């Protein structure tokens, strides 16, 4: 039942997306004097998504189990889920992404690595500092010097 609830939710999500795309496509021109115009292909695509999502939805309501990916856990045992880690990483990602340019690589990256390694992944302070320092130096040399990627200087400008 739990698996079918996930199937149902996933199918509903994509069905909704397909319908949304269809509505947006209908607002565009579908056909011109010479043939199809900008709305035609997206509408066709929306139709494909809606029909396929409906099939998945019906199967999940039916209780039948579709052939699913064989993504067995890479290590033995079942997979225990920890949504709090997902939220932690999501917030960290958002802050890192948003602050990278205004604050700068040299400041933001050590902060991100410290919080991620020490507080999310619960590594020791020694390990956190060593890995953080090594990563920043290596990535700075690799990206900025070797590959010529300009890293944002932010507040150090």
């Amino acid at each position: 039942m739990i698996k079918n609830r996930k199937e149902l939710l996933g199918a509903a999500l994509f069905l909704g997306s397909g319908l949304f795309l269809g509505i947006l496509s209908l607002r565009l021109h579908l056909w011109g004097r010479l043939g199809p115009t900008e709305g035609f292909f997206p509408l066709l695509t929306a139709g494909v998504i809606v029909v396929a999502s409906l099939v998945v939805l019906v199967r999940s309501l039916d209780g039948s189990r579709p052939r699913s990916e064989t993504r067995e856990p890479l290590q033995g045992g079942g997979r225990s889920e920890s949504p709090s880690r997902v939220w932690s990483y999501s917030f960290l990602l958002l802050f890192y992404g948003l602050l990278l340019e205004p604050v700068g690589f040299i400041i933001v990256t050590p902060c991100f690595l410290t919080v991620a390694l020490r507080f999310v992944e619960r590594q020791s302070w020694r390990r956190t500092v060593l890995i953080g320092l090594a990563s920043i130096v290596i990535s700075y040399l690799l990206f900025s010097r070797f590959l010529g990627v300009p890293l944002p200087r932010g507040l150090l400008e």
Partner: protein
Amino acid sequence: MLDNLILGFHVALSFSNLALCFLGCLLGTVIGILPGLGPVPTIAMLLPLTYKLDLTSAIIMLSGIYYGAQYGGTITSILLKIPGEASTIVSCFDGYQMALQGRGGKALGIAAFGSFIAGTFGTIFLGLLAPVLSQVALMFGPPEYAALMTLGLTLVVYLGRGSVPKAIVMGGVGLALSTIGMDPMDGMERFTFGSIYLMDGINIATLGMGIFGIGEILYMAEGGENRSARDIVTRPRNMKELLPDKNEWRRSAMPIARGSITGFLLGILPGGGALLASFGSYAMEKKLSRHPEKFGGGAIEGVAGPESANNAATSGAFIPLLTLGIPSNVVMALVAGAFILHGVIPGPLIIKDHPQVFWGIVASMYVGNIILLVLNVPLIRLFVKIIEVPYAILSPLIIMICIIGAFSINNNPMDVLSMLIFGGLGFLMRKFDYDAAPLLLAFILGPILEKSIYQSLVISHGSPLIFFTRRISMCLVAAILLMIFSPLFGRWRNRRRARGGSMQEKPLA
């Protein structure tokens, strides 16, 4: 062909390209060793960095990563029974058993040598077949291209992993994402919601890094995956332990030869690639073996054949991309992305307009195979240590690389935000059990498919019969219909047989 090969080697053996090939093989092997991370997220993460390189160098490095990752996955499959990459799952069956018997080094050695031989074979065939096929491709017009793209997407959906309706949904989502930006025929804005950023469409690098990099990290974070150091069954202590003996070579020779041919041919098929090649080879070797009962218990043929097949498939996979412009699997879709980012459309004109690119890539694949052999055989002990690095340390580092990579595309924080959004999508896709491969392929093929359909319908004044009246297009459409309806026909026939059987069993009144 000899002149072209000389040109190719001249390009591939330049110091910078050699260094990039070496770097690609090394990075690919290191990343391929890490379970869950394979060539796809690695190439996705490093794609933005290839902006700074010229096209030939970029493809050389990405190709090195591809076959480096194949071998990296083999190391963990054999020594830990943890497949580092999907196509190396098969090596777990007999390779791990060989490791338990103290023959892990031989398994790794035969995998390395078999991969080298198969890769060499694949490279030669690529050089021979691609120019011929590109001439055929020049006969393709818009209806043929539309039909071919559709066939490619159909094959990916039906031959890929997971449920078919879900794969179709993913294909649809990929096509939908490809429509964001400007319409390819009239240049009209679509689904940009007034954003200047979206007018250029979605960037393949942010999509790939988001779905395969960030999405995977979030999924691993949710699962609390924190590999502890596993006892490695056997570590090869010296070079001698890696070299198979005469008997093992004799038993491996034909599996390597068969694997090379099978792998190359299967690699050409969209949706096929290394995964199909390795499983196909294993099944074939077991069937042909005089002692099939030994398979699963440490038969060296069970490692030699599949490992050769998956490496030959990497060469075969380049054929549709370099001749028809169609990526046959997700990795090739990302490589196609690299071409597009450099302003070159992969397809039949590559050999004619950019011969140094094509022949440079062919020659670099041969050089890459030598580098892999030289690199991996003595460094296996070092690579094995990398397996012991827990995800708790790797995850933040991968995030850092992805974010820097995304930012470096255009020095635009919107690319980072875009990647994070796709990361969320990738995570949800993993949660709901949707395979990302059809999405990425459809995203790459979408603009070509749309343009081909539009042009076809303009030529035919709106009539869809154009797809059925041109010979090549008609054959391709027939193949699509066969792919779609043959499983349904098979199921209907089985149901009839079952009903017929149950009626015969009913007692007579």
